[in-house]
């Protein structure tokens, strides 16, 4: 049969049009698609790089142990380069192009809010494994990091008992810092203290001199810091250079999750108190083995581990456990398995999904910085996300996809 040019073109283009679907299905049949979108360059890489390493480690471990449901996990990592625009681009790519089974993504709250609606719209299961200000109420989004009711609520009374009731609050000037500062004000007042002043800093401020003078003028008993990023590390150094760390101590809701305690010297950091759901120094066998495996993997270049890195690892395992229980990677089946109380006993202890909020019940540790490492002072086991529980009940109404604290705590009906 002689093939006419027109017929040839028609059949060839039909094959070409059909092929992506064929290839797509063929690939979905062998590997489970796990996409990670985390900043590995520009300002936020101090947070993102360790998270990507631990995500890779978790996926490799699961694959070495035979994969999930007899299938390997196919990990794809995107670097949004600390740019919100690239986050939205890669989120669409992960959902529509890669047809991901699960996406673990986002570091700042701003990036999470940029991509969360995309995953809701495309119905792609989304994990956010970073400590944040609380308030996300989204059936499709699991927030495994710690929230202020778990950490700040412990940190404020502990440090006020130790140091005194006048608290000077300094925070980064974007949604995380603004909302966290309101939580600090609330907890300080709840404990009979006085938040004497609250100041916000754009992320590129490096000269903290005028603020240090104001702190000296206000004479608080302690400073509570929710500063974020590389430029803000200057605050701790200039504070110490003015001799202030000897007289007015600092507690922080952020210090250490970017391994800042390695970026300032021992004498500058000694005595600072922080609370997170994980420290590298957590004393249990699972964590010791985890830290050892991480160092063996990366050798001398291994960064210090912190809550973000540990939770990226645990988040991957919690998802894997839910897939096993569901016996499927189908989104609603996995979501139901997750919400049935799936837990993972990881380096930080037990992390269990709380079904009303899709957040996690988790251990919280309070620690003091000494010679560039954290000494754990207190352990609070199995802490629920009571902040988000105030405003969110996905059991009663699963059809929600909102960020309740978008306009601050007062707008969400919480007195501060």
């Amino acid at each position, binding site marked *: 049969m002689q093939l006419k040019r027109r017929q040839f073109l028609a059949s060839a283009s039909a094959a070409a049009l059909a092929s992506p679907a064929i290839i797509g299905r063929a690939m979905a049949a062998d590997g489970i698609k796990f996409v990670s979108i985390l900043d590995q360059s520009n300002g936020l890489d101090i947070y993102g790089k360790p998270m990507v390493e631990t995500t890779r480690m978790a996926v490799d471990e699961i694959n070495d142990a035979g994969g999930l449901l007899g299938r390997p996990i196919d990990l794809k990592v995107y670097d949004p380069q600390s740019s919100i625009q690239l986050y939205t681009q890669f989120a669409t790519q992960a959902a529509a192009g890669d047809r991901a089974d699960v996406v673990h993504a986002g570091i700042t709250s701003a990036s999470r809010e940029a991509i969360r609606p995309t995953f809701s719209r495309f119905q792609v299961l989304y994990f956010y494994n970073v400590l944040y200000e609380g308030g996300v109420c989204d059936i499709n989004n699991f927030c495994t990091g710690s929230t202020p009711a778990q950490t700040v609520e412990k940190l404020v009374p502990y440090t006020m008992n130790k140091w005194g009731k006048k608290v000077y609050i300094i925070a980064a000037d974007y949604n995380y810092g603004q909302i966290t500062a309101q939580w600090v004000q609330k907890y300080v007042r709840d404990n009979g203290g006085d938040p004497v002043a609250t100041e916000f800093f754009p992320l590129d401020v490096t000269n903290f*001199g005028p603020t240090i003078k104001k702190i000296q003028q206000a004479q608080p008993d302690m400073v509570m810091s929710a500063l974020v990023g590389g430029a803000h590390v200057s605050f701790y*150094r200039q504070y110490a250079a*003015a001799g202030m760390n000897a007289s007015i101590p600092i507690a922080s809701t952020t210090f250490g999750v970017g391994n800042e305690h390695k970026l300032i010297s021992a004498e500058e950091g000694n005595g600072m108190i922080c609370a997170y759901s994980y420290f590298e120094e957590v004393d249990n066998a699972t964590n010791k083995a985890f830290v050892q495996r991480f160092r063996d993997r990366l050798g001398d270049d291994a960064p210090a581990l912190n809550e973000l890195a540990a939770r990226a690892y645990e988040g991957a395992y919690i998802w894997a456990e839910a897939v096993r229980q569901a016996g499927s990677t189908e989104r609603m089946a996995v979501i139901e398995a997750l919400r049935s109380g799936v837990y993972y006993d990881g380096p930080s202890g037990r992390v269990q999904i709380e079904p009303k909020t899709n957040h996690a019940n988790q251990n919280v540790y309070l620690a003091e910085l000494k010679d560039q490492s954290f000494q754990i002072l207190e352990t609070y086991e199995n802490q629920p996300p009571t902040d988000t529980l105030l405003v969110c009940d996905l059991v009663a109404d699963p059809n929600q996809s909102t960020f309740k604290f978008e306009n601050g705590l007062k707008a969400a009906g919480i007195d501060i």
Partner: protein
Amino acid sequence: MDLVVSLALQILYGIANLALISLGLAIIFGMMRVINLAHGEFLMLGGYTVVIATNNGVNIWIAMLVLAPLVVGVIGVVVERLLIRWLYGRMIDTLLATWGLSLLFIGLVTSIFGASTATTISPPLGVITIGAYTSSGYEMFLIVVTVLLLVAVYATLKLTTLGLVARGTMQNAEMSSALGVSTSRIYMITFGLGAAVTGLAGGLLAPITGILPTIGAVYIAKAFITVISGGMAILAGTATASVLLGGVNGIVAFLTGPTIGEVALLVTAIILLRLMPRGITGTLFRKSL
């Protein structure tokens, strides 16, 4: 009274800080009309030199005052020979090329040393007490160094043969060339000196700032605004713009807060450039250096 003195010193430091981070950029811009967008990375490289050197047991003063300017100065000369000299007189092209260079430096430092590098240094020189207030002795030292640096640049330009030839080249490169001056060599030396001054600034700031591969980005905007507000005169421009912008920023930040402080700095620069499009020294102090 204690507060006034202590705050005045703090504002003086804010001014010195601005002058320190801008001077290297001003030298390169004023002499060569090249806007070096890798300026922030030169500062970062100065800081990294100090962190890496002190981690390997080098004395902090030697690392800051000798190694940082030396290393970054050499890098500057290499950059000028390989990249900048092909692009003189093409301002947009140099902007693009030096921006690419800044990305290259960030990438190189990240791949060699990782996303963050642990440090052991803290600011030397202790604390100065003024009544109920304390200030950092090291910040006072930086004020002195900045003044000395400005004097040194003035003396070099005014009193040495190199300075004379450099100023001649700056005013009329073709005429200098006709008189037998190797303008290419002058440009290389100037770029190297500008880079060295920037490296020194980065090194001096290392003990009181966080040093990360990406930290240059937070300095480049402020240095750029200071130099453009100052205008063509290297010294008078940098000094007057630093006093004005640093003073406004310090006072407003103390009275209101850091966010408004930053806004006030930018608003001042915008109004200034509306009234004096060629910068402060384009209108006032026109004969100055």
